């Protein structure tokens, strides 16, 4: 793949910050060493005769050359203070992450897709905690948000709405309002593909009893006749396969079939429909409609008409199209339910359905003949044929009579609106980047509750009349300039308005919709800033007709420009660049091949699993890793500081306070395991509540648990504790005699202090973790016990490890004194008092959100929610909604969409050209020339047939 970018190696931002932290620790190390070594150079003096400095002195202590003393002592101090650098931190974090990945993410039943037998798959363990800080999600549409499956869902005929289904968005809306929730069993499962409609008033001929049977008949006939679908296979309702340019068409024709108007054969001049129940219930008859003209669909006309002649000679024009164009062409009178229908369209639109209006017109034979002549002329024109055809079509597509409207559901993936809403509550902004048309994209944005009518929308679309006019003149340069000017104007204007609405605090949410061509100019360096500012202010951003490359560019813009953590999710090859560009790439492992998964960092089977991946696993990983890092920082800093204090009293000689082996094993044995256990098991609130309160996720976005402030608090605590841990034990024995009057020495003090350090550091974890299992107890007390066992063995007998015999018998000596027991009770309590105080104040007076939820859990009790034991996802009971529930928030959006990127050329491609495979390369190449009009159609998710010639 020539176009493939280099696969970037991804590291999490937390890890990068960790590197900063290590650097800081290094500087602390050097500062401490520097101070001490300078002082050691000053300190060294022959007057301390007992140090034997008069002759034969090694360089490090030779008072004759103080500079050299300082330099050499510096090295001593570096080794002495080196435990400040938490080398084991990286190992521990890696262990924790691998555990998180293999045991939690990959095995989470909630993210296991039963139907396809796909569990979630983390392809890297680097980015777990990044998942807890995502602020922007860039999502592909087809295959990610939607299933690319259109289903006939509802319709409105003669001012009556039919269809009982409830869309996901309505369910979500109902949940929001808490109204109209009525349990109802889910609709018949065994419905046909493309058809998800159930209403006894229409099915099996029942429409004959409806108030408008004639209109129903027209409706069904329009569906059955007015299309460009080719039937394939046996001419039986069960076996026929419709070849349609767009899934919408297939859905409509299938609907007609289900209503009893079975379209089964197409000849160049006619369509055959097997009609049931027309004359009488149960009667079937084949009817042949002669197709006289097809006025094709294109994106300017936004409608499609068919003129057909009934066997009885009736001449009818059936037209279907966007509500805007159909309503313009309706007859003034004789359209009694025009307004009801418009209400219905709005309702459909708000419910996220794709709507089409159906209309017909009876034609007078003479008028038709006259028109047909013009049509033939236009058709045979050599220049500007399309334009002429459009003009001619205008002549006849008028005085239409409205039949009704259809509502097709662009079937979303299961649970998408809920998921998006949950994520939005968690402070995550979701951008839809799609190759589809503007209308489709907006529609989907509505369908997944990204956008709603309460939002102020900024639409920057290159498909305006002005631009089209310029384009028609064919001057590429001029076109570019015009678009650029247009984009700049729109952007600045939008930004101004956005700022205004922000200032006035109307609480109006903003949405930006921009198409690929405008985006190309908007991403120019000059406009980039404006675009960034604007888009960051918007709650929802939809980019339509974008190429894979642009997807990546938009991602990078936010990643580099806004410095926010981004996540890209997609399923197809055209999402690869975007997946690689984002901080985290998520692939939908499913139908569209493996490229996306191969490029991704995490692979999940369904979009909705993102909720669990982010809100549960991401959040917890972030929480745990930040805790682990902060704790490591604290424990190493504290440990080293005690040695630093000690060396202020040793003439800056670099003497160890603790035995070599204590120091080496401190990080590896005595304090290693508990923190790993915390890193694996700690959780602030139960998993159920993680889902219930998605707002908790904001803590990750704002980086609350790994801010410098948090680290500074840990550092203060480390300094405080190191002072206590050094001075208390040493004070305790300084003047002390036990009851036989004997004095304790250096190694006694060191061992005692070390015991206190181990106890304190391990107990500190109890304050740090939210959740104590028996593993915590085992590991914490196990570590303390390990120290004692080690100390007993180590000082119990002479051993080669302790070359100097310093520690020999020490532990028994000190344990025989009262002071030891005094200190071991007092010192940890005194050192933890500050942290306890801080935690307590925090919880009491300025609680974090999770504190409150913890309390709530404590009071109400937590249902058992062990991650791995969760049963398969429960199906939420279907709920039926009152239609009025949505009426309140309706306005202009009616949800027109008729998705087929290349409808116009469908017929042309039918001859001998097979459907081209969806290919990454097509999309990629197409994207390269996205500026050209032809290919801008192509840069979509589904490269249409007929453009094979381009390759």
């Amino acid at each position, binding site marked *: 793949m020539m176009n493939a970018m280099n696969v970037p190696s991804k590291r999490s931002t937390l890890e990068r910050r960790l590197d900063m932290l290590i650097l800081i620790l290094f500087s602390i190390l050097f500062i401490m060493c520097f101070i001490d070594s300078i002082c050691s150079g000053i300190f060294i003096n022959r007057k301390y005769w007992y140090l*034997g400095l008069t002759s034969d002195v090694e360089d490090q202590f030779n008072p004759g050359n103080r500079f050299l003393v300082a330099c050499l002592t510096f090295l001593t101090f570096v080794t002495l203070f080196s435990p400040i650098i938490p080398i084991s931190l990286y190992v521990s974090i890696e262990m924790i992450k691998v555990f998180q990945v293999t045991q939690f993410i990959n095995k989470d039943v909630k993210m296991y897709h039963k139907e396809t037998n796909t569990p979630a798959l983390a392809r890297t363990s680097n980015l777990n905690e990044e998942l807890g800080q995502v602020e922007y999600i860039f999502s592909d549409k087809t295959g990610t948000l939607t299933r690319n499956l259109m289903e006939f869902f509802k319709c409105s005929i003669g001012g009556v709405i039919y269809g009982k289904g409830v869309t996901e968005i309505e369910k979500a809306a109902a949940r929001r309002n808490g109204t109209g929730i009525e349990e109802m069993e889910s609709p018949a499962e065994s419905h046909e593909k493309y058809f998800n409609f159930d209403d006894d008033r229409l099915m099996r001929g029942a429409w004959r009893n409806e108030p408008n049977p004639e209109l129903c008949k027209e409706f069904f006939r329009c569906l059955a006749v007015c299309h460009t679908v080719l039937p394939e296979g046996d001419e039986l309702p069960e076996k026929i396969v419709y070849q349609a340019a767009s899934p919408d068409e297939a859905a409509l024709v299938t609907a007609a079939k289900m209503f009893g108007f079975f379209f089964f054969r197409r000849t160049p001049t006619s369509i055959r429909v097997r009609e049931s129940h027309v004359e009488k219930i149960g009667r079937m008859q084949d009817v042949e409609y002669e197709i006289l003209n097809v006025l094709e669909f294109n994106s300017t006309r936004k409608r499609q008409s068919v003129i057909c002649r009934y066997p009885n000679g009736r001449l009818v024009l059936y037209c279907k199209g966007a509500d805007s164009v159909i309503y313009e062409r309706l007859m003034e009178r004789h359209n009694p339910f025009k307004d009801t229908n418009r209400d219905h369209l709005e309702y459909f639109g708000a419910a996220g359905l794709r709507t089409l209006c159906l209309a017909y017109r009876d034609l007078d034979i003479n008028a038709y003949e006259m028109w047909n002549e013009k049509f033939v002329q236009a058709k045979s024109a050599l220049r500007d044929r399309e334009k002429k055809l459009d003009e001619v079509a205008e002549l006849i597509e008028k005085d239409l009579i409205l039949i009704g409207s259809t509502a097709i559901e662009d079937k979303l993936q299961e649970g998408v609106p809920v998921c998006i809403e949950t994520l939005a509550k968690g402070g995550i902004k979701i951008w839809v980047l799609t190759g589809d048309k503007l209308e489709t994209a907006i529609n989907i944005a509505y369908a997944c509750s990204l956008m709603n009518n309460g939002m102020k929308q900024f639409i920057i679309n290159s498909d305006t009349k002005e631009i089209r006019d310029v384009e028609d003149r064919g001057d590429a340069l001029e076109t570019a300039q015009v678009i650029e000017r247009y984009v700049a104007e729109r952007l600045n204007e939008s930004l101004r308005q956005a700022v205004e609405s922000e200032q006035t605090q109307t609480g109006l949410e903003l949405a930006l919709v921009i198409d690929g061509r405008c985006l190309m100019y908007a991403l120019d360096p000059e406009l980039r800033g404006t675009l960034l500012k604007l888009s960051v202010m918007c709650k929802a951003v939809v980019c339509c007709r974008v190429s894979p490359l642009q997807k990546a560019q938009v991602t990078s813009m936010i990643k580099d420009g806004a410095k926010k953590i981004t996540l890209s999710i997609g399923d197809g090859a055209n999402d690869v660049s975007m997946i690689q560009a984002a901080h985290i790439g998520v692939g939908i492992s499913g139908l569209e091949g493996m490229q996306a998964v191969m490029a991704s960092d995490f692979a999940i089977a369904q979009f909705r699993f993102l909720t669990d991946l982010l809100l549960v696993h991401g959040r917890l990983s972030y929480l745990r890793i930040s805790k682990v890092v902060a704790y490591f920082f604290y424990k190493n800093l504290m440990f080293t500081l005690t040695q630093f204090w000690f060396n202020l*009293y040793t003439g800056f000689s670099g003497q160890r306070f603790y035995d070599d082996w204590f120091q080496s094993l401190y990080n590896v044995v005595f304090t290693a395991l508990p923190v790993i256990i915390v890193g694996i098991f700690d959780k602030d609130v139960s998993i159920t509540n993680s889902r219930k309160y998605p707002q908790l996720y904001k803590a990750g976005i704002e980086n609350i648990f790994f801010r410098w402030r948090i680290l500074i608090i840990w550092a203060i605590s480390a300094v405080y504790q190191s002072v206590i841990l050094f001075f208390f034990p040493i004070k305790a024995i*300084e003047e002390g005699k036990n009851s036989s*009057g004997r004095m304790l*020495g250096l190694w006694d003090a060191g061992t005692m202090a070390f015991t206190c350090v181990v106890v304190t550091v391990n107990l500190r974890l109890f304050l740090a973790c939210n959740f104590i299992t028996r593993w915590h107890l085992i590991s914490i007390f196990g570590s303390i016990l390990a120290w004692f066992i080690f100390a007993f063995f180590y000082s119990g007998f002479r051993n080669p490890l302790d070359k100097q015999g310093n520690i020999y018998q020490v532990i028994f000596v000190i344990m025989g004194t009262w*002071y030891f027991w005094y200190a071991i009770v*007092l010192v940890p309590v005194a050192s933890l008092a500050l942290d306890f105080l801080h935690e307590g104040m925090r919880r009491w007076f300025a609680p974090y959100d999770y504190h409150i939820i913890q309390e709530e859990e404590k009071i109400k009790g937590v249902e058992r929610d062990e991650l791995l034991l969760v049963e398969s996802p429960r199906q939420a009971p279907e709920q039926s909604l009152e239609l009025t529930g949505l009426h309140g928030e309706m306005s202009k959006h009616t949800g027109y969409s008729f998705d087929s990127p290349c409808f116009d050329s469908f017929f042309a491609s039918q001859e001998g050209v097979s459907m081209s495979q969806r290919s990454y390369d097509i999309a990629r190449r197409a994207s390269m020339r996205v500026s050209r009009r032809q290919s801008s159609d192509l840069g979509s998710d589904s490269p249409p047939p007929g453009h094979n010639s381009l390759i």
Partner: protein
Amino acid sequence: MVGVIFIPIGILSLLASNRVVEIVHRYDDVCIPAKYSTDKVRFIQSADLSKNCTQTITIPRHMKQPVYVYYELDNYYQNHRRYVKSRSDTQLQNGGVSNTQNCKPEQNLLGNASLPIIPCGLIAWSLFNDTYDFRDGTTKISVNKTGISWKSDREHKFGNVKPENFPNNLNESGVWIGGASLDVNKSLNEDEDLMVWMRTAALPNFRKLYGRIETDLQANTVLNVIIHNQYNTYSFDGKKRLVLSTTSWLGGKNDFLGIAYLAVGSLSIFLALVFLGAHLKNRRSLGDINYLSWNKKQQQNGNTRS
């Protein structure tokens, strides 16, 4: 809770510490003949001059036996790295001259490899050697110098090793430096002064046990102490003090632990009260989800709107 436990412990330890009678007497400055006051080092390093010096100490309160006698040194870096490592524990236990690498520069007498020093190293070489004789009037009060070292030192760390080639208070060049000599007939595990000395102190200001007076000292007794002041702390301005102290069940005079316990204990009680007070004043019922930040924000918005 911590307070409830800690305060009594603190009080008990303070009481115990208060019952201890401790006398600290500095003598390095006064035990110098006036004419040497400007050149103390020369005085202490001269082998011929008499170093005896009599001090009187008045016992303020009744001191119940045993009364422990300590010497206290100041500005003495027994914890200096060069010093701490300058010993050979193998040699101290088993004798012989292996593993004496760390003992430099006190490895061989006068740098002569055929005269290995036992016990080698700076620590042993710099052994403290002031001595104290106590008299009540003219009656000599005996000081018991056995059992001043740790049992583990006597039994495990120091062996039946006789000193050899010990420089006896000379430096590498044979100059008298003002330190101790060792009796070649006294094995190391019998020399308790050496064992005490070699348990190096953690801080530059330290006390070491000298011996026990095993008779009660009545209040107002005037003790005459004949100090043999020969240890050189003058070259580095170290102070020397003589300390007499009784012990309690807890140990010697050590207010620190008691105070620390009291402080931590009362702090925790104080904080508990503060918390309680603040809680009563600003009541937030536990687990009230209205206090969640986003709910609060909503409420605020609601308030400003209404």
